[in-house]
């Protein structure tokens, strides 16, 4: 993504533009998913350039797609009770109208126009920002070690790891080591999302036993994720040291 010492938003901005059209139509789950993926990558691009403006706009854009994305992921599962699955599918259908209205808001076009007007980020500045993101990952990670059951601490670490992965990709550095970590955290997050939607399901009596089972599964997953982090932390720490000395 680096071109002559600078990093333009280019490819991910065009990706966002293309998938907004798909998300509006609501025919494919990839639309909403890729809008969120692109907006997160562009958020990191802004961070690399030390920009504060436009990041709230991208956050707003992601939040408009959040429920639809959750429901797309859950509706694709084949292991959910039939009635609950049907309820999820129905909820997703009813989300589409509001989603389309939000994506038709002129703020979306203004976000695209603004990002298109922005100058590219210098590689030097971006690399300095990646070092800060690495430090933030290690800081969040140290909080997790002492709070293995703290879901919020794990989410903060997950988000920091995602920003680090995207930051490395923007500056053209390998991020493979982080993908395994992201997968583990992503798995935990998927279960937490499922729990949030179970808690909204009107037939709570039907869901009681299953909810209890999921609570236990979440507890096991949290412990496993903390273990995965502990195993990976030395590698991330070594990466941070290598970056600091470069």
């Amino acid at each position, binding site marked *: 993504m680096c071109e002559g010492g600078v990093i333009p938003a280019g490819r991910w901005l065009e990706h966002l533009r293309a998938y907004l059209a798909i998300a509006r139509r609501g025919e494919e789950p990839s639309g909403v998913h890729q809008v969120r993926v692109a907006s997160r990558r562009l958020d990191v691009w802004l961070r690399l350039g030390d920009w504060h*403006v436009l990041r709230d706009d991208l956050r707003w854009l992601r939040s408009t797609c959040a429920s639809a994305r959750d429901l797309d992921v859950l509706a694709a599962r084949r292991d959910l009770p039939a009635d609950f699955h049907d309820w999820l599918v129905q909820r997703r259908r009813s989300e589409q109208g509001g989603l389309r209205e939000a994506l038709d808001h*002129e703020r979306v076009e203004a976000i695209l*126009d*603004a990002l298109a*007007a*922005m100058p590219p980020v210098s590689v030097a500045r971006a690399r300095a920002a990646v070092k800060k993101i690495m430090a933030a990952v290690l800081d969040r990670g140290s909080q997790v070690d002492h709070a293995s059951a703290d879901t919020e601490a794990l989410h903060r670490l997950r988000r920091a790891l995602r920003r680090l992965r995207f930051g490395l990709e923007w500056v053209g550095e390998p991020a493979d080591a982080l993908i395994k970590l992201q997968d583990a955290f992503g798995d935990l997050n998927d279960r937490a999302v499922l729990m949030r939607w179970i808690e909204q399901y009107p037939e709570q009596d039907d869901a009681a036993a299953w909810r209890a089972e999921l609570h236990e599964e979440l507890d096991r997953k949290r412990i496993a994720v903390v273990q995965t982090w502990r195993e990976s932390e030395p590698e991330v720490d070594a990466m941070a040291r290598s970056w600091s000395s470069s």
Partner: protein
Amino acid sequence: MELFVIRHATAVPAREDYPDAERALTPRGARRFERVVRGLDRLGIRFDQLLHSPKLRAIETAERLVPLLDGPTEVASGLVRDPDPELLARFVGERVAVVGHEPYLDRLVSWLVLGKLERGDRFVLGKGGLAWLEGEPKPGGMTLLALLPAAVVRKR
């Protein structure tokens, strides 16, 4: 509500072969506006919402106001055309700053103070200058507290 209507700082001149939206601040324009921000800071001015146009010179001006902000930023294409009710509906804070362009900002001030868009010639904003309004963000619902050229604020 207090509303701070701020014109972007000095930008590179327009050129036919260069997209207007991508015109950046000049280095001098950026430095001088940073002094405006320090002047606003010394006056104790803070915002809880900051809206800006999608053009680069407004983006760069808005970015320099972020240290005075305790709240969200929002890009608003309503700031690159004559003001309308949709734009006013987006002013939801108590101390709102908007960064945009002439002649739209003059017309915004005229509309909010006099209830008419077309008396903007009474409220001309220089680059980096601002109009400070108070009241309800509806046509004729606001009072002009001050019209401050950038040079005055820089000297605070």
